[in-house]
Each structure stands twice: as structure tokens, then as C-alpha cells.
């Protein structure tokens, strides 16, 4: 059974063209949600030392150093083109969320705001959701043994407050609000950014027709999604479940019919 989008659904629009890579979103998220520190490793991946989304990193800022031009920017770095892209990634809160589909306990659920949230007290740590996520967002926390990811600050939404990351973002790169309104805003912004010469700019996750039915957290990217470590064409991993079940049903019927035929013959 496919879910229908929740009316009045809220979401994030992350405009990476104005991200300054300060990581305030990572910290504000951890402060609000008491997410544990994720380790003290120098990765050498530009200024990214938290490496990616996971159980202990619910907002993650990617840093990409490229020998490519950015719009009309004159980088002055030697004779080459250069740009430094930064983008804050987060759970996509998919319209069709595989994590939710595969969760056997009802720990993952669709909230009244259209977001997807893990319920720690229900999760049994089976981990099915981890490989199910087409974006690699969700992880199992070692200390507690249960799955963890962005809740879009479910508790704050209940109090009429915006999520901690969007609230703190110094340049408003992370915007929170009514998803339809955000999509319109993003379209307008995309046009501006393209006019400013960033012809490779694009929206990512805004399209309800994509493989996950559109995401509740979508992005304005300045390059291909792969550059940011995002799948170019994400598909809900449970997409084929209904047809699989149909095939299973047909096969089962066939098997039954065969068994019946054999039994009939033996008689």
C-alpha cells in the first residue's frame, strides 16, 4: 500500500549556494537532540571531519574542492578555475520511505507533519532500515543499539518551533517551512543562481515524480548530486515490494495449483 503525502507537510530547503560551511547545523542538531560526539578523527577530506550522515551525525556538511569555475566567480587561485562547494546534508524524509516500509516494529513512523521519525523506545535494533535507505542516512548507534537519524526536531515542531539546524543557520542556507511553499521558493532561487552564471545549479529531491516520490528535505546543488555524495537517481528500495508480492502470490498460486494437480493425480 503506497502512502499518500500528508496535507500540510513540512520540510527543509537547503540552499547550498549560500552555505558557508560553518557547521552550526551539525552542532545545533547535536545540542538539541543530545546526539553523542562522533569521534575525533582528522579525515583530511577538506574541512569535513565528521565524514557523513549516520547515527551520530544527523546534519553533515560536505566540503568539495574542485578545479571548476563557479558562476562568474573569479577565484584567482593560480591560473586554474577553482571553487569550494559546501552543502549541509540531512535525512530526506522521503515521500516513499523505505526505512519506514521495512521497519518490522513500528519504530519508524510517519508523523502528522509528514516527516519520518525513529522511536527509540520501540526500535529493537534489527537494523533492516539501515541498508533500506537509498541515501545511507540512517545508522545504528553503537552505544544504545538502536537506529538513529534526523527527526526534523519532532518535539520542536509540536511546540511550533522550527528545527534547531534551520534556526541556527547563519546565512539561512537551511530553510524550514511548508513544503509546497519551499518548493516554489526554491524554483525562484534556482533561476536567480543560474542567472548569476551557475548554470550547473539544480534542485535535488524536489520532484514528486522521482524514485522516492520527492523528498521532504530537498536541496539546491551547484553540481551533480554525485559530487556531494548523493545518489543521482534514488529509488525507494521497497519500490518493487508490491510487484514482488504479486509475483510471490502468482508463484504461490502456481505452486498450490501444481501441488493440487499432483495430489489429484495420486488419487
Amino acid at each position: 500500500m503506497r502512502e499518500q503525502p500528508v496535507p500540510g507537510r513540512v520540510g527543509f530547503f537547503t540552499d547550498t549556494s549560500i552555505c558557508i560551511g560553518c557547521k552550526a547545523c551539525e552542532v545545533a542538531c547535536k545540542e538539541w537532540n543530545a546526539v553523542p560526539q562522533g569521534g575525533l578523527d582528522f579525515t583530511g577530506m577538506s574541512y569535513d571531519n565528521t565524514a557523513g550522515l549516520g547515527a551520530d551525525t544527523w546534519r553533515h556538511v560536505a566540503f568539495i574542492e574542485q578545479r571548476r569555475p563557479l558562476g562568474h566567480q573569479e577565484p584567482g587561485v593560480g591560473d586554474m578555475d577553482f571553487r569550494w562547494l559546501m552543502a549541509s546534508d540531512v535525512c530526506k524524509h522521503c515521500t516513499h520511505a523505505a526505512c519506514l516500509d521495512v521497519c518490522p516494529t513500528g519504530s519508524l513512523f510517519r508523523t502528522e507533519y509528514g516527516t519520518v521519525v525513529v522511536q527509540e523506545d520501540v526500535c529493537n535494533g534489527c537494523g533492516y532500515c539501515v541498508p533500506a535507505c537509498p541515501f545511507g542516512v540512517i545508522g545504528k548507534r553503537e552505544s544504545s543499539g538502536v537506529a538513529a537519524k534526523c527527526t526534523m526536531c519532532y518535539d520542536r515542531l509540536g511546540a511550533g518551533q522550527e528545527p534547531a539546524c534551520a534556526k541556527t543557520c547563519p546565512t539561512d542556507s537551511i530553510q524550514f517551512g511548508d513544503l509546497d511553499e519551499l518548493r516554489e521558493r526554491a524554483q525562484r532561487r534556482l533561476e536567480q543562481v543560474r542567472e548569476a552564471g551557475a548554470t550547473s545549479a539544480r534542485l535535488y529531491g524536489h520532484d514528486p515524480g522521482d524514485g522516492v516520490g520527492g523528498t521532504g528535505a530537498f536541496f539546491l546543488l551547484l553540481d551533480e548530486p554525485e559530487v556531494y555524495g548523493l545518489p543521482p537517481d534514488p529509488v525507494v528500495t521497497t519500490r518493487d515490494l508490491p510487484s514482488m508480492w504479486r509475483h510471490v502470490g502468482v508463484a504461490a498460486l502456481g505452486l498450490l495449483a501444481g501441488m493440487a494437480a499432483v495430489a489429484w493425480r495420486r488419487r
Partner: protein
Amino acid sequence: MDFAWPLLRQLTGGDRSGRGSAVKSARTAGLRARTAEADRVVKSVCPYCAVGCAQNVYVREGKVVQIEGDPDSPISRGRLCPKGAATLQLTTASERGDRALYRPPGAADWQEIDLATAMDMIADRIIATRRDTWEWDRDGMRVARTLGIASLGGATLDNEENYLIKKLLTALGVVQIENQARVCHSSTVVGLGTSFGRGGATTFLQDLQHSDCVVIQGSNFAEAHPVGFQWVMEAKARGAVIIHVDPRFTRTSALADLHVPIRAGSDVAFLGAIINHVLDNDLYFHDYVVAYTNAADILRQDYRDAEDLDGLFSGFNQESRLYDDETWQYEGAQIAPASGARDVDYARRVGHLPPGRVEVLGGTGLPLEGTPERDETLRHPRCVMQVLRRHFARYTPEMVERVCGVPRHLFEQVCRHLTENSGPDKTAEFVYAVGWTQHSDGSQFIRAASILQLLLGNIGRPGGGIQALRGHASIQGSSDVPTLFNLLPGYIPMPHAHENERLRDFLHADAPNKGCWAHMPAYMVSLLKAWWGESARADNDYRFGYLPRLTGSHSTYDTVLAQLDGTCKGYLLLGENPAVGSANTKMQRLGMAALDWLVVRDLNLIESATWWKDGPEIETGELRTADIATEVFFLPAACHTEKSGSFTNTNRLLQWHHQAVEPAGDARSDLWFMYHLGRIIREKLAGSRDPMDAPVLELTWDYPVEGELAEPSSEAVLAEINGWDEHGPLSGAGELKDDGSTVCGCWIYCGVYADGVNRAARRRQGSEQDWIAAEWGWAWPANRRLLYNRASARPDGSPWSERKKLVWWDADASVWTGYDVPDFEAGKSPSYRPPPDATGTAALSGTDPFIMQADGKGWLFAPSGVVDGPLPTHYEPQDSPVANPLYGQQRNPARKLYPHEHNRYQPSGDEPGASVYPYAVTTYRLTEHFTAGGMSRRTPYLAELQPEMFCEVSPALAAERGLVHGDWATIITARNAIEARVMVTDRIPSLRLDGRVLHQIGLPFHFGPNGLATGDAANELAAISLDPNSHIQEVKALSADIRPGRRPRGPALPELVRAYRRRAGVDERTGTEV
């Protein structure tokens, strides 16, 4: 019907798929935001940088449960950077200690100590050291002081705390009072102060949105002040051009339209060339320049420029390495500066020479008055405009390529953007930070930008100005209410020792007759009344004699030398970590190891508190814990949520933060510490007839205390800073009198407590106000937000353009009006011309916008106040891989050097041995950390974002030296060697200059051995070589070698440094030439 079982809910409710409400657990349903459940919300201000973001502190059951941005703030609009977002962890969950600790001489470890006992012991030590080291006279002149005690720190503290530190220690005769402002922005006070009259940023952050072109140079705005950077993004969204000039491509460059890579330390050449371009092509704002600057003033015949003397100006004494600025004066007038070195002309002004200062060739007491000769056609060969043209003529685009490594096409783009976006209808703004200040001629970097902005007519106008980004919550405040050796509150100079000096001599020498500073007698007497109350009377010079006297420099670096030579025996560290944050950190630690006693007050055990047991010199064997006789006290400090007080942000805005909770354990505010320390000392000295104790015993020290901890009332201290007379609180500095009838602790803050209302605590929602937001907090002076705003109107008082109007003359009402508080006498008509005998502000005409200046003009040329030259001149850094292409003079001739076994300088340019240290090094901040790390490296959420010290090198340098990305490298100077993880990146480009390739190395300066995020401190490498104006250290440009691999351990480390020195031929004379 609600069933407890999810399955039943699924079958009976609307959620048949069992993925929504049916599976919601009771815990989930019961979740409430802790912000919504809080008992109270306390209004506060972020304790990190000086943007001054407002915070809401949520308290429940006596505990802080959440801290986040306050959306009402017109500055931050509810946003916080990662550090601000981590303040909950900083204040409640980092490794803060809350016990007082004591380390006896020679002991291997700490022991706990009762707080009251520790306070008593510290008071005893201060009293004893003071007695042992007291000096009544030095070279026959009264000094009445002790050099045996020093303090460092204040920029992270409240204004009220700074006030008590300065007041108590000064009364005790301590002159070595310093704070982070010395090592961060002291050059700003000189550069902006001498140019415009006040040493603070000329504008405010929100006004950036009105700029048409923002040039960020010497600052990594987006990284060091992320929330302030939102206003750059606003400007960009409105079509402004954003330019970033920096050795590295940073997170600021990533958002700019144009990034100009520049060799670290070559900014004067770059700015000088823009000035030359503007003059050469007549692109300056003619009407503005003629009316509002000193371009038309004519200089004396005997003035010689750097152009004539190959990099020197007239008046230089090769022996003393000091300038006599007499020849820099205007023809027909002797003028005193509003800032900078105000005492150098003392002799000339009072008519005699102090002993020991014969090098300052004395005149015969020229009067301060006199009217400079002017040629408003700007054609006179000796007028400032012509002198400027000649001085900057050699600063050509070719020279920019050779000196700065900036290709011509990039330089020309900057010129084009800047000049196209300046004029009556447009404005451009410069933004800088410590990338400009921390040089051996740092004050001149800021002077260069000031000249350029005056020529372009960008000062005092919306979207224009010079924005100095300061980096501690109250570093502006700790300059205003100064914990600085050379200043009294409100930038009144601290008196130097002079023979038989009376108050009137001091005022005569240091106060000009014209401009606002002519009222200095009122400011000074009111200050003395604030400190010594009833005891300060006209017949005793208002106790002017109680102020200890300076003899030369007593900056924090002089203090380190004084510690090493045994003069300074006791040291108070108040929220500063010099073992990581100051230049030549080894010298800092060795200095502390020579002390009798050390008091460290901080949130946690910083490197400056633990060097005696685990510092780098213990590892190398240069120090042995058992041999270190220093007694060390560690007293845990209260953080911003645990006390009330005001911070002054980077735009002179005072904002009050309210106490949310009581500090835990022995943690106390610095207000508590200073107040009770003073109380205990006064109790111990009670009844003393020793004249050295009179200033302490007669000090006004009766602040009301509150609560169980006996916390002094910070509002009572603010009231004293504001001042009062017999009728109650004063409402502005204009009410101050020189007859002893007014009391005022800091004249520029007079008005913050007008009518008994704490205006720093005003919080009218930003969205209800215009962009000036005059009812949010209180800015000095007189709540003006954009300084010198008289210049936003034409000489006749009408706006230069509709688009850039700010304040204007309302002829019908005969009053200045507009959006901001006019920075001008409200009723002074544009047609006002002073009578010949006028003094004070009345001596300035209706067209003089720079009211603090004795001539009312913006100073293109500084006839006084800047000790290393009236015009900025490119000199190479103390240690530079480049020979100065502009002049024969390699380095700033007047720079201050401190040759010492541990502070050796390196050969430069073409000198033999210079190639041993072939690379340029620059140091900087990262968004994720704060200064010397005391407030970030122990905060887990910040530590994980940048966990380790690293160095940034270009792929070309990596190839040249065999450095491997992610591996280790060792960086070596003549002072020390450090190791760092290697980050190979295009973001630190190698430069082409003068036919060679120059590689640069980038080093973040936050790291140290203690805490969670660790590494060697970049400042181990830096030398103590200082700007002679500001005594700031040169850490933004030096030279070094780099090689692959980790540094040696143990004694092999100093041996490596010595081996390099030998190879380069370094001895005690290297680099010390004029």
C-alpha cells in the same frame, strides 16, 4: 476510541498501513520541546566573538537546559554559529572544573584548596610582592608603582569586570595590565583613531546590506564571524560585489565574487597601489576630500618623505630608532592626535624635555593652537594631496605583481569595482580583522585603508566605512574600559613619568584645544572622582598623583621579559591563555616558570595553568617540574550564563546579559574575584600609614553585594561607569565637568545608564525597528551607530544623494536630523564658522565631520600620533623570504625587537641564510574553534569538527618538499619547531612574484596539548617583534621551513631548532638591523 495496542489502533483507526499514528508510542506522544517546558527564558549574549549574537537561555528547575539564538536581535536575527550553538555544552557539559586548585612550589601535582583560603593567600602575595617591588622613583621621576605584578586578560569578561580590574590594580600601583586587545586589535585603535578620531569600527554590521561593494581583506569574515557574514550575503543578494583579498581561498572566498590571493604581509603595497590608481586617474571624491579631509593642508618645508629617503621619513634617529615627528606637522600649526602616541610630544608641548628622552628633539613648547595653512585647489606642492601623490607614485600595478604576487588583471578588477561603487550615489566598505593588525607595521595597514576610504568618500556614509571585526565578546569593551597598560577609561592616555608633573601639565600636553578631546579635563577629573571619591579634591590635583606612571612600554611582551629577568614576580591570568595564544609561546611559559606566584582564572585547565607539569618544555627537558618554584592557583571562573554584565560588541554596542543560574562549586565571576580581592587587601592594609597604601585605602570600593555568594552588583558598577552628579545619573558626556562635581568611570560610556535605566539591556525587537535599531542595546558614543555621519551630507547639509542619505540638516528646524543619531552638535548649522578664539567643539566649523580630531578633518596624512611614519609605507615583515622591492629599507625601521636566546630573528630576503627559512607562513582562525582553544577544544561538539592541528600547503609545495596529504609535517623557525597533519590544497596557492615562485604555509593557531582537540601551537614559531605604535606581535606573516614527518621528541627538538639556526647563521644580531 483509543486502543493501547498498535495493531488494534491500526485495524480500528485511520492509519491502516500501520506507518503513522497507529504506531506512535506513548513516549513519542509525550515528547515536549524543552524550550516550551522551561520555567524561564533569560536574555543573554554569546560569549565567543564580538558580533554579539543574542541568546535565549532556557532554565528549568535551576538548570540551563537549552541555549539558542534570540530572533529579536537586529544583529544576529536568532542565528548562531557552531560555537554559539555549542554554548550549552560549553557551560554545562564540557570539562569545566569547579574546584579551586593549588600547586605549591616544586610540587608534582595539584591539590584542592578552600576558596576562601586561596583568596586570602593571593591577597597576601599581592601585598608582599607589592611591598618588595615598590618603586617611588625611576630616573629621578616619580612613578609610584610596582613592576612586580602583572595581569593579562579581560576581553572575554564583562565591561564591569574590566573596570574593577583596572581600578583596583591601578590603585595598587600595577601598570602591567593587559588583555587580548593588545595581541588582537591594538593597531585598530591607532590606525582608525588617528585617521578619524575614534579607535573603533566606523560602522555597524547590519549596515553592510547597503554597501555596493564589500572588500574583505585581512579577515576571514565567514569563518571567524559567521553570523555577521549574513549581512554580506544580504548585500550580495542586493547586487553588491564581494571581494576577498587573502593569502588563502577560504570559506569567505567561496562566497565572494572575486578572490585575490596575496602574499601575507604585503597589504600596504596593495592598498597603496589602489590609492595611487585613484589619485592618478582623479577618481577620488573631490568635494568630499576637499571639505572633509586634510588634503588641502600644507606641510612644513622640512618634511621629507619615504620617497626622498629610500623608505625613511624625516626625523628618524638611527641610534634610538625613534622618529621625532616635528617635521611632519602642518605649516603654521602644531596638532595633537586623537589617538595613538599622544605623549611623544609631551616635551614640546609643555616646554621642557624629560630626562632620558633627549632623543626626542625638543622645541620650545609650541602651542597646540594655530590654524594650518590650506590650499583648497590642492595644487600647492606641499599640500597633503600632492605629498600623497608623490608618496604613492611608486605603488604601481607592476609593483603589486612583484610585491604581492597579485596578477595585474585581478588588481585592476579590484580598482574598477571599488571606484565604480564609490561616489555620491554609491558606497563601498572595507572589512578587516587581525590579518591587518598583527604585523610589525599593523597600524599602517589600517591607516592605508583609512586613506583610501577617505579619498573615495566612503567614511560616515551608509554602506561605507571600515568595519573592524573584533574577536572576543567584549574586546571592544576591554579597550574602552581598558585593561591595557597605556590607557585609562575612554582612551584617556595613561600618564608617563615626567618631572614634577601636575594634572594641568598632563592635560595641557595630551589634550588639544580644539575638538571633543579639548574636554579631556572634564573626563579626567570625573574619572579621578569615580576612583578616589571624597579624597579627590581640587587642592590635591584630584589625586592625579595616585596614578602609577609609565616609563616606556609595559605591554604583555615587555612583561614576559620582565618575568624572565626577575622584575615581575606575580601574574594574574584572567581568561587568557598566553601559553598558546601569544607569540613565542615558549617565552610565555619560561616567563611564568620564573614567577613567584601565578593565578589562573578560567573555565578549565588551559595550557597556561598546567605548563609546569605537562608543558612542552617538560617533555624536552628544558624545565623540570620539581625545579619550578612558581606557586600556581587555579580558580574556576563563572561563565556568561552565571553572571550579569555587559559586553561591548565589535561595533561599540553594549549589550547586557542576565544571569540565568548560580555558578557551581568554587566557580565565581571575575567581578566577584576582583571585588573580594580588593576588599580583603583593604582589610589587611587598614590602618596603614604607608603612603603607598593610601591609593588603595582611599579607593571607592563599596559596591553592594547580593545573594549567597556575595556577588557584587554589576549594575552598580555600570552606574559608576556611566557616572552621576548630585542630581543622579548623567545622561551624556556633555554634562561632565572639570570642577569635581561629576563622577564618571568612563566618559564614552556616559549615557548608558541615563535616568537610572540600563540601556545596554534594551531589547526592542529588531523587526519593529529600522536597520539602525537604535533601541537595541546602547552604542558609544551617545548611541550613534554610524560614526562621522555628518559626512553623509554635503557641506551645505543636504544628502549627497537620495540613495545614500543618512543624516541631514533640517534648515527649518535648525537641527541635524535623519535615521541615525547625528555625530555632530545637533544645532550647529553647516554655515557655522568658529570665531578665532574658540576652543573645544565650538572651534570646529559646521562642515567638520570628524569632531574628535583637533582640526575636524579626516587625516589622509597623520602629522602626529603614528610613531612609524605619517603615511603607510610598505616594509617587509620582520622575517620575510622577500627583499623589499619598493625601498632600500627592508623592515619597519621603528619596529620593536626583543632579542633573546629564545627569541632569535631570521635572515630575510637576499641575506645569507634566508633560504634556510624559505616559505611564508600565516596563521588564522577556524570557524570551529576559538582563539587559544580554552572555550572550544574541550567542547566535544566543536572538538570533533576540527580535532587536530594541521597545516595547509599547495600541491606544488607538497611536491617540492615531499609532503603527503594526511601525513605529518614539521615546521621550523629560529624559535621552535612544531608538527602538524598535512592538508594539501589548492586553497593556498603558490604565488609568482619577481620571477620566482613563493610558497605559503597556513597554520590555524588554536591548538595546544590540552583538551580534546589537540596539537602543537602555531605560536611556538612566532617571534616577538612588535608594531611600535600598538605593541602588537607579528604573527600574520613570518618565514619558516617545512619538511615531512613528525618533529623530534625530547632534547632532540631544541637541537633541531639550533641546527637550523646554525645553518642559517642566526645570532643575536640577525634581523635586528634598522
